[in-house]
């Protein structure tokens, strides 16, 4: 069977669809569904093996295979560069896009960083990479490759970083926003990131996703392991709205969302029942005419949640169910392309009073050209829920 796209992204106009499927990046022309670029990570990794925790230490027993995935795909503001991360050697990949060439992906730089990247952002030709060790590195697109040991972090948390955003205030001053596994969202000046502007604190669990909507860059939507998402004015450090999402998705939660076996007994004793846990996998927005909608994906669910942005508030608009779990989605102009964990693989959405599934030929052409066939399980498509903190035993 074909492996679903783990990542989808698009340019502002929605002409091209950038995808990653295991260790392959494919670029599609969204006008005709043809592949216009392809790149495969051929790097062998010393770390591509199954990690098993030591049972003797009394720690949680689980195994996780680290595969050779491409994670994160973003375009710079000029849309001349595509930036990605490769799992194999913990590196940042910078491609120059040449849409007239037979293969539009031209790798111009592969910069290794010391720890596993967890997110990246780009603004004004500077890429910033956040890693799982809590540090952020700055990598200019045009600079020479740096010796990995000489890279100095521009900021750091004593926590696992989960997302990073580069933003500008109303007066065009740049800032960097970072979020971590210990509930913090930090706003720092940029590039003088040693001056912290402030914190946005109202989460009780990890914060996995930050999203600054294109329709108002003073806003920030954050979400993670909580039952709610937060709408902030990040510049004024003001919480504008807390939006409950659990109620909306409760019926779509299944055994995947239960806490790990080892703590179920304890939870049942304490709470009287098992509590299913939600994790935010993706936040994005789409503008249709004059109206803007925020789209939320909860990990391992078959639904997209739509909220309309009205009077500086998010108002519930629609929930759209698919036949299988959604892995990722991208907004291409005024359409939405959804990657599904099923034989269907990809669906397109169009807006007509509300968002509806649009059966179109281009999507079928794209599906035909997916190059990765696999029979492995797709566990890695759902990495976020494992970020939840569990009480550790005290010594």
């Amino acid at each position, binding site marked *: 069977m074909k492996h679903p796209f783990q990542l989808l992204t698009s340019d502002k106009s929605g002409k091209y669809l950038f995808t990653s499927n295991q260790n392959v990046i494919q670029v599609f022309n969204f006008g005709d569904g043809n592949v216009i670029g392809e790149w495969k990570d051929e790097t062998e990794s010393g770390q591509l093996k199954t990690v098993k925790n030591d049972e003797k230490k009394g720690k949680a027993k689980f195994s996780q295979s680290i595969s050779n995935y491409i994670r994160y795909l973003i375009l710079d503001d000029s849309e001349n560069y595509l930036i990605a991360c490769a799992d194999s050697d913990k590196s940042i990949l910078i491609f120059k896009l040449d849409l007239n060439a037979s293969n539009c992906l031209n790798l111009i730089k592969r910069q290794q960083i010391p720890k596993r990247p967890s997110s990246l952002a780009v603004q004004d030709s500077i890429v910033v990479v956040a890693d799982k*060790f*809590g*540090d952020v590195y700055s990598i200019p697109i045009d600079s020479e490759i740096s010796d990995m040991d000489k890279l*100095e*972090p521009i*900021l*750091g*948390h*004593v*926590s696992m970083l989960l997302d990073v955003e580069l933003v500008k*205030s109303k007066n065009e*001053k740049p800032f960097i926003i970072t979020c971590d596994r*210990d*509930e*913090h969202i*930090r706003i*720092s*000046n940029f590039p*003088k*990131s*040693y*001056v*912290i*502007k*402030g*914190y946005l*604190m*109202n*989460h*009780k669990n990890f914060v996995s996703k930050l999203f600054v909507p294109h329709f108002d860059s003073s806003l920030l939507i954050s979400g993670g392991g909580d039952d709610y998402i937060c709408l902030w004015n990040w510049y004024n450090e003001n919480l504008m709205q807390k939006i409950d999402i659990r109620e909306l998705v409760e019926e779509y939660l299944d055994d995947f969302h239960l806490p790990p076996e080892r703590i179920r007994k304890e939870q049942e004793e304490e709470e009287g029942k098992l509590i299913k846990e939600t994790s935010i996998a993706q936040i994005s927005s789409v503008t249709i005419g004059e109206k803007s909608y925020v789209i939320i994906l909860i990990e391992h669910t078959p639904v997209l949640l739509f909220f309309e942005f009205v009077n500086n508030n998010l108002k519930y608009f629609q929930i759209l169910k698919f036949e299988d779990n959604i892995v990722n989605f991208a907004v291409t102009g005024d359409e939405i392309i959804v990657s599904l964990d099923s034989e269907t693989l990809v669906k397109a959405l169009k807006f007509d009073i509300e968002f509806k599934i649009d059966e179109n030929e281009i999507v079928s052409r794209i599906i035909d050209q997916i190059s990765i066939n696999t029979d492995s399980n797709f566990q890695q498509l759902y990495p976020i829920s494992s970020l939840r*903190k*569990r*009480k*550790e035993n*005290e*010594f």
Partner: protein
Amino acid sequence: MSNNSNKRRLYRDAKEETRKQVKIETPDTETPSDLEISLPKKRFYRQRAHSNPFSDHALNYPINSDSMDWKQLYPQNYPNYQVEIADIGCGYGGLMIQLGPEFPNSLILGMEIRQQVTQYVEDRILALRQMNKDKDYKYGNIQVLRGNSMKFLPNFFKRGQLSKMFFCFPDPHFKQRKHKARIITNTLLSEYAYILKEGGVIYTITDVEDLHLWMVKHLDSHPLFERLSKEWEQQDKCVEIMYNSTEEGKKVERNNGSKWIACYKRLPNPDDTE
């Protein structure tokens, strides 16, 4: 469980009972009730010196600094209940007990990651308050919290809130691989700069020369800190207290070890930052 550790646990349990009683019966009054409270004995609270700052300890901390109820921690009435002095990794609390009477109008908070050591300091402060309830100075302005300062300081403190931060005899984390676990790093200093007011001071002291050089290197290279001179150190009361009064400091003295001091002033933010 060995006989000894059992004895230590029983002692701590009994102290905890007292602590609860004081808190429940007299939450807001200035003087604790007539309970007999004796100074705790350190040997019942000893804990290994190291703690991993990266692990998910079961900690209590407020969701943000606005949610912190300081009145619960400081029994006397203070004008605005703003902690101004923090002793990061306060250990057995020796520094605070000396600083308390020196700055009777400032709230002082010790933070310690080890649970039993925190309990010791808590019991010690309770006992001191009880023993001094009829005196002018009653130890009402010092308190301790269990916490991981490397992760959660912004949960407790607002921007520019503190005027002094103390880092006394921090864990040296000798191994290269563990250097990020050190309490002074370039990236953490930005967070300390955030909660320190302009002109505020970071005090460091250690008996490990290598760690001293590390802290100096990182503080020197941070754009928001500037080292204070030897002359300044000599006239500063806190330096003197820090040098002489902490348990670690006294231990170093007994062993004829050296102590290295470095103090840094918080510089103003650059004009083009917010």
